[in-house]
């Protein structure tokens, strides 16, 4: 089982959304991390055959992404999806089952199974328009699993889920990743940290880092520091180092930052986590948005 992405690119008029991405994915859970506009959704859409690439190709065991056979093996949860207003959760899954080529009886069985799995059995006959964001998201996850896909692509699957639902979802994905390729994108770093066997870090349309958690955080291992400093030192550190966390504490400021060596005498080296790496790489974007929202 091998999903090969070969020099996949997508260009718009004045923007390169995805830039010559090449990957080979085997069974397991792959977490795609990146800031807004980094090209995650575009990449996922091309992998699902929803968006035509400018160049490059996507093949699963030699089957091209444009073929019906490929779509037969695919489960996809888009970032934003709609539903026909007259549909109940049950109707929605039955409808998509028919599009996925399931027989009527199999569709009914699978729909009931999946509604139970995502905890929507009680509201199966209720109109989707009455659902909360989390319920809609769970329904979206259920539809992606209807055809028992070999490739499961989930764009922001945990958006709108409460902490309990997220834990349930993580467990489900971990189980699913045993015998299929699961590619998920999220902004919630901890989701990726817990369930992804391989992390893909995307920036400006390119995969800048790829590997298991231990490997991927190696570049900042021993470079993450925490300190409790006075106002002036805090200002100096904020201006000169990539900051991961700031917290005001009485007359002092708590900082978590990345530096080659201890930036001040109060600084203590701490164990690096994925969030540190993410914020380190996307520091510029984070600072830009802070300025945009007037935080600084």
């Amino acid at each position: 089982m091998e999903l090969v992405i070969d020099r996949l690119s997508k260009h718009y008029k004045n923007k390169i959304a995805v830039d010559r991405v090449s990957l080979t994915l085997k069974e397991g859970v792959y977490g795609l991390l990146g800031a807004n506009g980094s090209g995650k959704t575009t990449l996922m859409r091309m992998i699902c055959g929803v968006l035509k690439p400018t160049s490059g190709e996507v093949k699963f065991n030699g089957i091209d992404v444009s073929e019906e056979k490929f779509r037969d093996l695919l489960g996809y949860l888009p970032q934003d999806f709609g539903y026909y207003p007259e549909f109940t959760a049950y109707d929605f899954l039955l409808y998509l089952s028919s599009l996925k080529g399931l027989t009527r009886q199999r569709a009914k069985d699978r729909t009931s199974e999946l509604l139970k799995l995502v905890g929507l059995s009680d509201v199966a006959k209720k109109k989707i328009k009455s659902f909360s964001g989390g319920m809609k998201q769970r329904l979206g996850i259920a539809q992606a699993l209807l055809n028992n896909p070999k490739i499961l692509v989930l764009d922001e699957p945990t958006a709108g889920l409460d902490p309990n639902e997220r834990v349930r979802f993580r467990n489900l994905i971990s189980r699913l990743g045993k015998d299929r390729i699961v590619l998920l994108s999220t902004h919630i770093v901890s989701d990726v940290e817990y369930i992804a066997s391989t992390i893909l870090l995307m920036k400006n349309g390119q995969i800048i880092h790829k590997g298991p958690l231990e490997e991927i955080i190696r570049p900042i291992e021993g470079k993450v520091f925490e300190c409790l400093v006075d106002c002036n030192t805090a200002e100096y550190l904020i201006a000169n180092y990539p900051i991961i966390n700031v917290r005001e504490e009485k007359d002092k400021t708590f900082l978590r930052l990345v530096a080659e060596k201890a930036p001040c005498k109060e600084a203590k080296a701490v164990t690096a986590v994925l969030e540190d790496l993410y914020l380190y790489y996307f520091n510029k974007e984070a600072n830009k948005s802070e300025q945009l929202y007037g935080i600084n």
Partner: protein
Amino acid sequence: MKYKLKKELKTVFDAPAPARKEEFINLLEYPKANRLDFFISQIGYIRKRVWILSLLLFIGTLIGLYFSGASYSFVWVVSSVLPFVSLVTISEIARSITYNMDELEMSCKYNLLEVSLIRIGILGVVNLAVFIGILLLLSGKTDLGFIRLGIYLSTPYLLNCYGSLFVINRSKSRDTVYICGSVTALVSILNSLISIRIYDIYTERNRMFWAIAFIMFAVLSLKEIVKFIKRMEDLKWNSSLTA
């Protein structure tokens, strides 16, 4: 004896929990629905309002014929109502985009293009059946020939098809169906006004006008349908969707 022993054993020992049940189930190949099953299933997903409006129009024509008989004014009434049938049909064809289901449907085995083609096929046949039914009812009651009557009735319908598809193919908004509704109202009013104001619009004198209008709108509608299908093949996403 053996049976008794088995029964006893069952009561003494609990059956072990199935091991790797899920993996085993995943290995099974379930029978898949074929294209015909898919086609039939899609008929059920055509909204009731399409069938109801088509039926109402047919019954309305029957009632109208019974009470007022076939006259030129009856022809323009029917021809002014027919664009609404095309509106319901077009809104049905474009509803994947209207309700943001396009991306999901594009990723399925039978994708958006196939769904759209099937909808166009089913609704085209329904529209044609209603149209021929009305034509048969009216043609026997008027001195207008079958073809002439067909052209009078179908020209506003085709104009509306062209106008609505023109809007759908160029608009990126999900509210295009409301614009299409306005186009339909405009076509219907225009048709009524022309029929009322120009008293000899349905006479031999205007034969060329009708023939040209019919051919022109038929060709333009066909072009827009082809464009719509091509759009379904490769839905163009604007860069705001690439976050």
